[in-house]
């Protein structure tokens, strides 16, 4: 502090010796306030508050008039408190996912917290009842600390201003509002914040009880009182709402809520919007982190997760939460909603706790459950799932043939594990290879397992596309089979099956325990033989295993035992989708670039000679994407990588 003051140009120019400076470096306040001033202050506060409430009250009203969230549980509250501490107070996600701007924002936020008492004292002083003495011991320390924050805040806000207005990252723009490439309101708010800090800091350099102090005091006051009414009109509403939004998250990742009764078909009109959806819509800060990581948006599709949320906000602003206009209408398009792969990158990135995936699935439900979604491939998919109970529309006899050929034991209640084949494991040639490899490993370990005589699709594509009728039929039928067959533990090669069985089926019953085969393999690493080579294997984190289930290290342990693990640029929580999720694998050709091609190129660019996958959908998508490439890397599931190291010689087919 001494160093700072001593080197301050102001101090040096004034020629004031450092010791005196120290004595004088305290917050200057006006001497006293006249009655007129006090009355004026009260009047201004009242006006400011009224203007604030005029808009904020409407927002609160809209949120409260929304529907109740079915399936929402406040308890257990531990995770909520932790998330609040970590994400709000520590600004962890804000900083981690965009470090420099994130840190700058964190300083601004912490400054606001630090300034709590400053501001309170400021207004108290104006009314003659100030409680913090700038000359006192506590006051000196507190105001000094606040000053440090103010400086950091001022620098940060200036930096953020430069970023927004001069660097102009595209993610901050709003494509839905042409001509709104820069947010002027953000500029105004930035200016106000800067002014707030400047007026505060300047108060250290004027004489106490001087005219300058009074002017600065009033300037500071006017800035605050102008800032307040602006908050609910802009994205700065997040100041008030986002701590609440983060605290009131749905509980899990991409938790799709149950439907609540006979009239609920999903998010069809304003009447279907719930408290959480409305709260989240009003919390959006338009940072664009969601869109930045969206695989659809990054490959030329019109889907923009930020605009989905802001579209709901726009709807609420214009029509409100009791309106009958379709949500997929003026502010959001059906086309965009159905381009989502449900990869969850958007939801994962959001620093204010918006849960995009349940909202997008909700919009899809509203279109599919009411028959509004008229899509040739979609119709075929749903009819195939109803008729053949699998997403591919293939005869169940094909699966039986595979079981016979591989001599897979049938589950009879006595084995430890039920091996779930799934649609890909049961019907896709590549998926079958993965099953065959995993079965080799289980045989080597002596694990007792069996496959169900009859499996129906878990319903994942129907669930993500919003067809609750088909999903319910499949889930209930499967749950019944599992109960009758006394299935206790399931192991599956497909993260989609794992997610759907463990989480989505809960809506209709109590599913058995289930794990992904990477978890099984990781647990048994010590008992499996390893034959490590120098080969570079690049691992692709599947969306439904990584972000959805938090499994990142287990598959990697299988790879590092076999070769040299290589990470793609976008890895772990930032893994870039293969493009198959959300039912999109079944919806035919996509517009723009193929998501699978983009990701495949990224994996190939690492120079690895093998691509390690842990999901049969990722596997099939990359296989397709690399079909026309010469010398493309081998494409192997971790089960195949593990099986390759087992003693007996096996001819594993190349990609």
């Amino acid at each position: 502090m001494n160093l700072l003051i001593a080197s301050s140009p102001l101090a040096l120019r004034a020629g004031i010796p450092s010791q005196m400076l120290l004595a004088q470096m305290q917050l200057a306040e006006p001497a006293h306030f006249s009655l007129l001033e006090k009355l004026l202050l009260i009047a201004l506060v009242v006006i400011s508050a009224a203007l604030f409430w005029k808009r904020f009250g409407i927002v609160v009203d809209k949120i409260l008039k929304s529907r109740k969230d079915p399936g929402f549980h406040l308890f257990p509250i531990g995770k909520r408190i932790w998330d609040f501490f970590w994400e709000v107070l520590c600004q962890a996600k804000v900083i981690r996912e965009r470090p420099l701007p994130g840190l700058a924002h964190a300083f601004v936020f912490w400054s606001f917290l630090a300034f709590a008492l400053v501001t309170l004292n400021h207004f108290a002083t104006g009314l003659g009842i100030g409680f913090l003495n700038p000359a006192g011991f506590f006051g000196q320390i507190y105001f000094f600390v606040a000053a440090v924050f103010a400086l950091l805040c001022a620098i940060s806000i200036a930096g953020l201003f430069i970023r927004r207005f001069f660097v102009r990252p595209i993610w901050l723009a709003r494509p839905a509002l042409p001509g709104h490439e820069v947010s002027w309101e953000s500029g105004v708010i930035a200016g106000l914040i800067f002014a707030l800090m400047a007026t505060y800091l300047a108060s250290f350099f004027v004489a106490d009880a001087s005219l300058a102090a009074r002017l600065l005091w009033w300037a500071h006051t006017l800035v605050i009182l102008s800032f307040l009414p602006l908050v609910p009109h802009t994205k700065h509403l997040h100041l008030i709402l986002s701590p609440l939004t983060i605290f009131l998250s749905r509980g899990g990742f991409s938790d799709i809520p149950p439907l609540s009764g006979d009239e609920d078909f999903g998010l069809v009109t304003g009447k279907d919007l719930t408290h959480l959806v409305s709260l989240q819509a009003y919390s959006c800060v338009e940072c664009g982190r969601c869109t930045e990581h969206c695989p659809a948006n990054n490959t030329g599709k019109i889907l923009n997760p930020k605009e989905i949320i802001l579209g709901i906000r726009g709807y609420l602003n214009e029509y409100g939460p009791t309106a009958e206009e379709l949500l997929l209408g003026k502010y959001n398009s059906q086309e965009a909603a159905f381009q989502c792969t449900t990869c969850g990158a958007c939801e994962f990135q959001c620093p204010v706790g918006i849960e995009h995936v349940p909202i997008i699935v909700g919009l899809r439900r509203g279109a599919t459950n009411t028959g509004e979604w008229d899509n040739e491939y979609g119709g075929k998919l749903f009819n195939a799932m109803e008729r053949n109970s699998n997403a591919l529309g293939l005869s169940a006899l094909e699966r039986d043939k595979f079981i016979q050929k591989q001599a897979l034991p049938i589950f009879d209640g006595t084995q430890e594990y039920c091996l779930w084949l799934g649609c890909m494991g049961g019907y896709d040639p590549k998926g079958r290879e993965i099953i065959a490899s995993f079965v080799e490993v289980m045989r080597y370990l002596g694990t007792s397992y069996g496959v169900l005589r009859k499996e129906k699709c878990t319903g994942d594509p129907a669930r993500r596309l919003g067809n609750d009728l088909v999903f319910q039929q499949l889930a209930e039928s499967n749950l019944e089979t599992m109960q009758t067959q006394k299935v206790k533990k399931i192991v599956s090669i497909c993260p989609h099956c794992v997610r759907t069985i463990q989480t989505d089926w809960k809506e209709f019953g109590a599913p058995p325990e289930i794990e992904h085969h990477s978890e099984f393999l990781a647990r048994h690493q010590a008992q499996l033989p390893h034959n490590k080579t120098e080969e570079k294997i690049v691992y692709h984190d599947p969306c439904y295993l990584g972000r959805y289930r938090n499994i990142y290290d287990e598959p990697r342990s299988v790879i590092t035992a076999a070769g040299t693990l290589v990470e793609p640029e976008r890895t772990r929580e930032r893994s870039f989708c293969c493009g198959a999720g959300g039912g999109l694998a079944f919806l035919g050709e996509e517009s723009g670039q193929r998501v699978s091609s983009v990701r495949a190129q990224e994996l190939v660019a690492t120079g690895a000679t093998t691509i390690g996958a842990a999901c049969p959908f990722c596997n099939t998508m990359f296989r397709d994407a690399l079909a026309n490439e010469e010398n493309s890397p081998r494409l192997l599931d971790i089960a195949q990588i593990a099986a390759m190291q087992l003693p007996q010689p096996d001819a594993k087919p190349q990609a």
Partner: protein
Amino acid sequence: MKIIVAIKQVPERDARIRIDASGKWIDLQDVEFAMNESDAYALEEALQLKEAHGGEVVVLSAGPERAGKTIREALAKGADRAIHIQSADETELAKFDALGVARLLAAAIKDEQADLILTGLQSDDLGLGQTGVILAELLGLPHATLILKIEKTETGLKVLRELEDGWFLHLELPTPAVLTIQSGNSKLRYATLMGIKKAKTKEVKVISVADLAANAPDSKPVVLLDAVKLPHKQRTTQILGGTPAEAAAALVEKLRFEVRAI
């Protein structure tokens, strides 16, 4: 337009085929059922006509209680009401031949005065492909089969019929008429949650086979099923070996005489 669509609930295509104790049908244990495929297309055609020209779509089906599920599916897709000719058990309808069943259907709809009656081309189980044609004769109505498209005209209907070998034909006929619909001509709508919920309030008139047969003219079956048997050949892959010329010759033989494609 009042359109009646006759639909049938049949064993699903993947059903495991085991002959039952009577030797006259398959064992129905663990067999799941679905709407006959070409009937689904007939229903779709009817719903599209209703959407274009207004009117009512009535679904008609003969079968045991389990057929109710398929009837509700049709109501969920948009049909307005249904008539279920309910047989007492799995064997009652087997005692009727195609003419007998068609007589029951005709009796059930005799007061309906439909403008159009649609059936699927043939059923996935018995595959006779005759019910619609027989119904036309019983009701004294004109008919056409293998229809892909229906258009309403001033005088009646203009329809597109499929012929062999990639040929097609337009036909014009007056209403009321009977048409049998070929699969694959349009994309089928899917049953929605909203549709299923609405279906709960739609009327399903249940008539028993016994009641209907009592009022219909006497129909002793003229064609009787004696037994069903599994065919000798199962679908396996035959790899044709030898030199390319030999394998080619073998394949040509197969295509000519087994597949009968050339």
